[in-house]
């Protein structure tokens, strides 16, 4: 047992979730059970094109629910989209939200719920515990493995004016039910699979080394790291393999349970800043930044990083801390590269002149609060430079 629970209380929050093949088909039943009658279904064009949106709508309508669709969510959900969705929710007098999609869709759905219940702009709720009124019941049906918004208390929305992502952290945005159906992952392409998989990996690692970790989150974090390390390469190569997909989905879930309660670290703080500025995929940002932040954090909690190495199948036996750190970095970079995420930030259009701005934004991110080593802006600037 770690020392953490001897010093502090620990809480573990998770929504009711159903994991397994065809779990999405319970959407109608749950919507009714939660007292819904007019449902706002939120999705994005990609998910709709894959057929998942209408699949869920049909299920809801079969239960006699009235459905209003909002499929205007972009890859990095914007405050303006939240405003539009909330207006739609009110105009259609909806009383329940079903999100069908990846992290963007689920984050946007959370934003819509907050604004519909509290009014104002979504930007008013930035920060921790800033949502006064609870929102209408929310059912999440994730269609990507990795983001874990379906079980988390996080919602990340882009402030289009400032070109920056804001983080909303509140128990109010933990969904009421998550229907986690690995079947939906079958439509993901290799790169998206890689990105979301790496996101789940980062969730698990940051949760495990978080200064707010607990024995329960540790369990889920390590298991998630093991599952991603074991199956991500194969899954990216064979997108149609349902069994591999199920492993990744389970990894994503466990990583989600871990980070939702232990929170994250500076990888996410920097990724939020980067993603908001460059409109890059979240998982991709994480994958590009992860090795450098691990390197930066290693000294604070070497024992935990060794166990991470163990879970990844990286043999650190007989190595001292400095050697272990180097070996782990190499291992992570290899995994990233194997999954197709190569090169650095400069290849993705980030210029040196952008870094100061990125670091200034990243230092404001609440995720830094649970990073094992409290960074300064200069630290973050250096880390961005390394990731170029």
């Amino acid at each position, binding site marked *: 047992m770690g020392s953490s629970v001897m010093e502090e209380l620990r809480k573990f929050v998770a929504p009711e979730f159903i994991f397994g093949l065809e779990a999405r088909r319970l959407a109608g039943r749950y919507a009714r059970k939660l007292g819904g009658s007019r449902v706002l279904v939120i999705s994005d064009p990609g998910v709709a094109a894959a057929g998942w949106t209408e699949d869920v709508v049909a299920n809801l309508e079969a239960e006699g629910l009235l459905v209003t669709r909002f499929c205007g969510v972009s890859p990095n959900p914007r405050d303006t989209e939240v405003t539009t969705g909330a207006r739609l929710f009110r105009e259609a007098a909806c009383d329940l939200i079903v999100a069908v999609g990846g992290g963007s869709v689920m984050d946007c759905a959370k934003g819509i719920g907050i604004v519909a219940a509290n009014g104002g702009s979504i930007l008013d709720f930035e920060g921790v*515990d800033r949502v006064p009124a609870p929102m209408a019941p929310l059912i999440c049906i994730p269609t990507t493995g990795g983001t874990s918004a379906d079980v988390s208390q996080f919602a990340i929305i882009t402030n289009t004016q400032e070109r920056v992502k804001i983080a909303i952290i509140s128990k109010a945005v933990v969904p009421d039910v998550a229907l986690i159906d690995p079947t939906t992952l079958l439509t993901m392409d290799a790169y998206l699979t890689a990105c979301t998989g790496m996101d789940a990996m980062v969730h698990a690692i940051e949760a495990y080394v978080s200064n707010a970790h607990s024995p329960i989150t540790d369990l889920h974090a390590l298991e998630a790291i093991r599952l991603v390390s074991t199956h991500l390469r194969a899954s990216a190569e064979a997108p149609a393999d349902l069994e591999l997909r199920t492993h990744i989905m389970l990894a994503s879930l466990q990583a989600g349970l871990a980070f939702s309660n232990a929170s994250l670290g500076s990888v996410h703080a920097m990724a939020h800043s980067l993603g908001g500025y460059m409109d890059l995929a979240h998982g991709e940002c994480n994958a590009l930044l992860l090795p450098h932040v691990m390197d930066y954090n290693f000294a604070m909690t070497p024992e935990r990083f060794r166990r991470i190495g163990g879970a990844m199948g990286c043999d650190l036996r007989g190595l001292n801390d400095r050697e272990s750190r180097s070996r782990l970095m190499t291992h992570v970079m290899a995994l990233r590269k194997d999954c197709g995420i190569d090169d650095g930030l400069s290849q993705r259009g980030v210029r040196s002149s952008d870094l100061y701005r990125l670091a200034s934004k990243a230092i404001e991110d609440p995720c830094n609060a649970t990073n094992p080593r409290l960074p300064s802006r200069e630290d973050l600037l250096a880390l961005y430079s390394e990731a170029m």
Partner: protein
Amino acid sequence: MTERRDWTRMRESIIGLGTDSSRRTYYPELLARVAELEEARTSLRRSEENLRTLFDSLHDAVILHDWEGRVLEANEAMLAMYGVTRETFRDYTIADYSADAGPASPVAHHLRALRDRILNDEPQVFAWRARRPLQPGSDFDVEVSLRKVRWYDQELMVSVVRDISERKRLEAMLNQSQKLDSLGQLAGGVAHDTNNMLGVIIGYADLLLERTAEQPGLRRDLEQIRKAALHSADLNRQLLAFARKQTIQPTAVDLNTLVEATQKLLRRLIGEQHALVWKPATTLWRVWADPSQLDQVLTNLVVNARDAIEPAGTITLETANILVDEAAAQFLPDAEPGEYAVLRVTDTGHGIPPDIQARIFEPFFTTKALGRGTGLGLAMVYGIVRQNRGFLTVTSAEGVGSTFSIHLPRHLGAECADAAGPAAELRGGPETILLVEDEAALLETGCRLLEGAGYRVTATPDPLEALRLVEEGLSPDLLATDLVMPGLDGQQVYQHLRRLRPGLRVLFLSGYAAGTLDLESLAASGSGFLQKPFSRATLLQKVRELLDS
């Protein structure tokens, strides 16, 4: 970095240990909203109840109806006004609630015209004749304001209906009063002037009769002149009575006694074929009135009743005490609130048609066959009753009969001793009389009459001249003066002279009292009054009476 954030506190919040970090349920939110809705509903219901109360408290009827005249909603005042119930008021249309203005202009036609006007968005206010669908013959006058409204998303009309039959009735009542007043002024003015001339005619006729004792042929002609003049004088008296200009000498009167005293005479007037029933009140308030006037009233009403009965019937005389309060006074023409003794004369005759009821008190308005009545009877009754501060009412139903009720105010003061002694014999005397009269012909007549009786008469048409005469040493025993004169009136002349000659007696002469004479004080001070025109006999009798008192 200028500001170091509190990472520790943020960390605590993130891991869920902050005070606001517990997950909240939607349930209290829902409850709050339900409570809010409930409150809104309650307040809406209350507001609706309040508006309904206001709606039903309106004195005017409010009717919501569609373009076809179908009634959708109405307030309590409407139900009361139209004599329908909450269950039945929708059974009738606006056409059913309206009276035809005449065969040439049916309701439907009017409604169509109104609708066209309303469509132009102008609120309309107009007079209308309303009908109670369940009470035929009880149509009434209303004022309607009509406007277009939205009612449950439907375009309707709302009619606000005010019953103005009361207003119209009061207007008619007032009109009639004013009409009788102006007729009275006219009649009074004419009668006053005529009286003076009649005085001259009668006076000279009397003088000539004195001198023609030995000439029967001439006497007969003179008698005719005198008779005609007296008849005219009598008509004049009636006109003055109607004009409330008769000089009255009121005393406390018990109407029961008055009726009983004249019963014999009345029975004779009525004739054998009709019955006279007398129902006196056991206790009856006394009234303050001129008994001879009341005799005229009673006689006139009984004759009027007799003429209404064909071929045989009953006339009932009845007395009662009545209290007229503020509300009742509103409905009775000329009435003031107060205590009244009432004399009712009821007949079982043909009744008076409603359209002429209002006019029966006008002078020379008569329904009797030509030559049977003067048309002044009821006019005189009206004037007398009004002059004695009373009022009268008439109820009549055709074929059933009529009742005339004379209301006279209760008298609470002391009884005034009636000083009328036995008729003094006609004799003159040697006393000096100062006669003041601005009408030259009448002045000369009076002078001749008094001198003929042996008095020493100094006559002048000028009141100021009269003062001067006395100041210069004239010492009359009696002042005989006209009341109404230019310059000084009779009373002023008397007051001036009395200061010079304290024992001076006075006889006032006038066509009418015109409110200038305090009759009660007159009676007490031993002075006298003579109504013009007067005969030689009444003049001499009155003069002697005063000189002897």
